[in-house]
């Protein structure tokens, strides 16, 4: 016999995790298949230690040592004509190996090539800022600090970029819940009204499917409204809109039978 499963609220449980799921991986090609990339890699390997390199989706991926990052960036910009840092950030691998992967996405406008420089740092370690080489790293490093808590050393203005300054926690960590931890859920209430106001407002309603027609503290039903918190009723609310009904002066009912429609422009 099949085990009993609760069919109530089945929609909320539609998301399941497959224990044996393996995320699809793009094919990795050898760097030697591309002339420009193999020349770039050769120039880099003469100066730095490259632990792994491959081409994925037409873009070269390089793994370097964390301490080399500034020299590698300078080399890429000045010698190899990779003159544009389009994005840099981190990826959370804390559950797997207690490490962050840091990536730098580069573009060479002259060569029409993109490459990605990557390295791993341990949890709690800092990276070296590359603001003085690529200005676009300024906000990207601040965002990385905001979202992952990874500090960039020697950054001119290491401060949160997106979240408020007094925010607790780092939202892009995989351990951070999507709806936020306790301090996040009460952030605006604590800030504006104070902690004692939590009981007045009550917790956030996160169940978007929930509709209670009899709940008059959330929504009033149009046409049969009742005061806040009182019992819902089906009786029509008496709007006295028009002057004829004893309502507002000067606002009269539009009577179609008294109107004249012109057949022709005067």
């Amino acid at each position, binding site marked *: 016999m099949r085990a009993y499963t609760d069919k109530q609220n089945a929609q909320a449980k539609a998301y399941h995790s497959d224990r044996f799921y393996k995320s699809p991986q793009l094919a990795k090609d050898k760097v030697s298949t591309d002339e420009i990339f193999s020349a770039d890699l050769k120039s880099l390997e003469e100066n730095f230690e490259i632990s792994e390199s491959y081409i994925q989706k037409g873009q070269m991926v390089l793994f370097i040592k964390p301490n080399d990052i500034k020299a590698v960036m300078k080399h890429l910009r000045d010698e190899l004509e990779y003159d544009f840092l389009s994005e840099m950030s981190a990826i959370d691998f804390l559950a797997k190996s207690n490490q962050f992967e840091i990536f730098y996405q580069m573009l060479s406008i002259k060569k029409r090539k993109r490459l990605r420089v990557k390295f791993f740092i341990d949890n709690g370690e800092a990276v070296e800022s590359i603001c003085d080489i690529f200005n676009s790293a300024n906000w990207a490093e601040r965002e990385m600090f905001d979202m992952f808590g990874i500090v960039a050393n020697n950054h001119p203005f290491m401060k949160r970029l*997106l*979240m*408020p300054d007094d925010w607790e926690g780092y*939202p892009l960590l995989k351990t*951070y*819940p*999507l*709806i*936020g*931890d306790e301090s*996040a*859920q009460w*952030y*605006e*209430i604590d*800030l*504006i*009204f104070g902690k004692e*106001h939590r009981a*007045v*407002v009550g917790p*956030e*309603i*996160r169940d*978007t499917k929930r509709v209670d027609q009899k709940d008059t503290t959330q*929504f*009033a039903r*149009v046409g049969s409204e009742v005061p*806040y918190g009182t019992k819902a009723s089906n009786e029509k609310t008496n*709007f*006295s*809109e028009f002057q004829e009904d004893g*309502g*507002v*002066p*000067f*606002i009269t009912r539009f009577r179609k039978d008294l109107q004249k429609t012109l057949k022709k422009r005067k």
Partner: protein
Amino acid sequence: MAQHQVNYLQEGGLPVALTTVDKLVQWGRSNSLWPLTYGLACCAIEMMAAGASRYDFDRFGTIFRASPRQADVMVVAGTLSKKHAQFIKRLYDQMAEPKWVISMGSCANTGGMFNTYATVQGVDRLIPVDIYLPGCAPRPETLQYALMMLQKKIRRQSAFSKAKPKRLV
């Protein structure tokens, strides 16, 4: 100026209308609702369309003001992020009584599709709301309808009733 010839004996008698102060005051208030330009996200585009000439809010006496001190209605048009939450409260407090709030769109009503850490799950957690306008985003006609509903609500109120303590603080 246009010259109007009014025949008092035929068209509605003497030029006198008898009414109560309540009705007169609320008639004035409801027909000169000045909203604060408070666009937060994509609903703001619909709000701007409602204010522009095609939908023409001006004919309801609704003229957008750029200062909370000159505004009567706050149309919260869009997603309210938690970082911005303190400013909506500050702007609401700066508006002079009497004041009303239209919560425009799903995001302002309940947080909408942004069931995340960074979005306020409904502006009514921070300020009292008079009209909840559903939609994502509501069309300009819908905003007009919400405004007309608000006008009806105002016309029902008493002009000199002491401002009731609103739902929150």
